[in-house]
C-alpha cells in the first residue's frame, strides 16, 4: 500500500519518507517488462490484422474485439498500473465497463427483435 502522508521532505530521513532503497517502488515495472508488454501488444496488433483476412463470417467482429480487449487489458495492467494502488480503481473501472455492457445488452434486447 502506498504512503499517503509526507510530513517532511528535503533530505530529512524518517518514517514519513518513501523507502526507495533496493526494493521495487510502488506500481513501477522495470523498463524491460514495459518493453515486453509493448512487444506483446504490437504482436497482437499484427495478429488482429492477420485474422481480419480470414473468413470468419459473423464471428469476425467478435474475434477482432476480443483481441482488442486483450490489448487494452495489457495496457491497463502494465502501462496504467491499474491494480497497483489499491482495490478502489479496479473495482470502479470494472463497474464502469459492466454499466457499458448493460447499455449494449439492453440496446440489443431492443433492436435485435425489431
Amino acid at each position, binding site marked *: 500500500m*502506498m504512503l499517503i502522508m509526507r510530513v517532511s521532505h528535503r533530505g*530529512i530521513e524518517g518514517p514519513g519518507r518513501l523507502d526507495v532503497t533496493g526494493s521495487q517502488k510502488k506500481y513501477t515495472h522495470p523498463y524491460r517488462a514495459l518493453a515486453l508488454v*509493448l512487444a506483446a501488444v504490437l504482436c497482437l496488433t499484427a495478429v488482429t490484422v492477420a485474422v*481480419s483476412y480470414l473468413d470468419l463470417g459473423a464471428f469476425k467482429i467478435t474475434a477482432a474485439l476480443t483481441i482488442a480487449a486483450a490489448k*487494452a487489458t495489457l*495496457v491497463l495492467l502494465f502501462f496504467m498500473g491499474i491494480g497497483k494502488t489499491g482495490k478502489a480503481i479496479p473495482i470502479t473501472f470494472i463497474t464502469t465497463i459492466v454499466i457499458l455492457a448493460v447499455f449494449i445488452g439492453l440496446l440489443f434486447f431492443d433492436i435485435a427483435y425489431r
Partner: protein
Amino acid sequence: MRTGMSVHRDDVGARMGMWFFLYTEIMLFGGLFILYAAYYHRYADDFIAAGNQTELVLGALNTAMLLISSFAVAASVEAMGRKASKAAIILLSFAVILGAAFLFNKYLEWSRDFSNGFYPGSDLMVNGPKGQSIFFALYFVLTGLHALHVFIGMCLLCACIILTAKKRITGDRMVILENAGLFWHLVDVIWIFLFPLFYLLH
C-alpha cells in the same frame, strides 16, 4: 526534525479523480461505440463495403505509433520514479512527437477520403447506400473526437515536460505526470478499439 506540513497534497485523491474522469471519457466514447454497434447490426453489409475504403496501412501505422508512445509515457513515469528527470523528458518528448505523427497521418487519411468523395453531405454519401454514409459519419465523428483527445493529450504531456524542466514535477511529487500519462494511455486504449471497427472490416 519536522519542518511542518507542506502545501496539502492528496496523491490518492488526485489519482482517483483522474480515473473517475477517465470513466466519463469511457462513457463518452462508449456511447459512440454503442451507436456503431446498433448501426452495424442494421447495415452490416454496407458497413463491410464501406470498411474497404479505409486505409489499413495508415491505420495500422497509427496503432503502432500510439502503442509505442504509450510505452514511452509509461517508461517516463518509471524514469521519474527513479529520479531520472532528463530521461523522463526525452521519453515524453518522443511520445509527443509520435502524437504529432499520428495527427499528421490522420490529416493524410482524411484528405484522401475527402478527395475520394467521402465526406458528410457529398454526392457519394447522399446518393450511396444508407449504411455507407452512416459508417462514414461514425468514422469522422469517432476518429475526429479521438484526434482532438490526442491533441489534448499532447498538450498535457508538453505541460509535464515544462513542469519537469522547472523541477515542479520531481521523483517525489509526480502525480501530475502520472495523471497525464493515464489520459494518454486512455487515448491509446480508445484507438485500440477504434482500429478494428473502422480499419479491419473488409
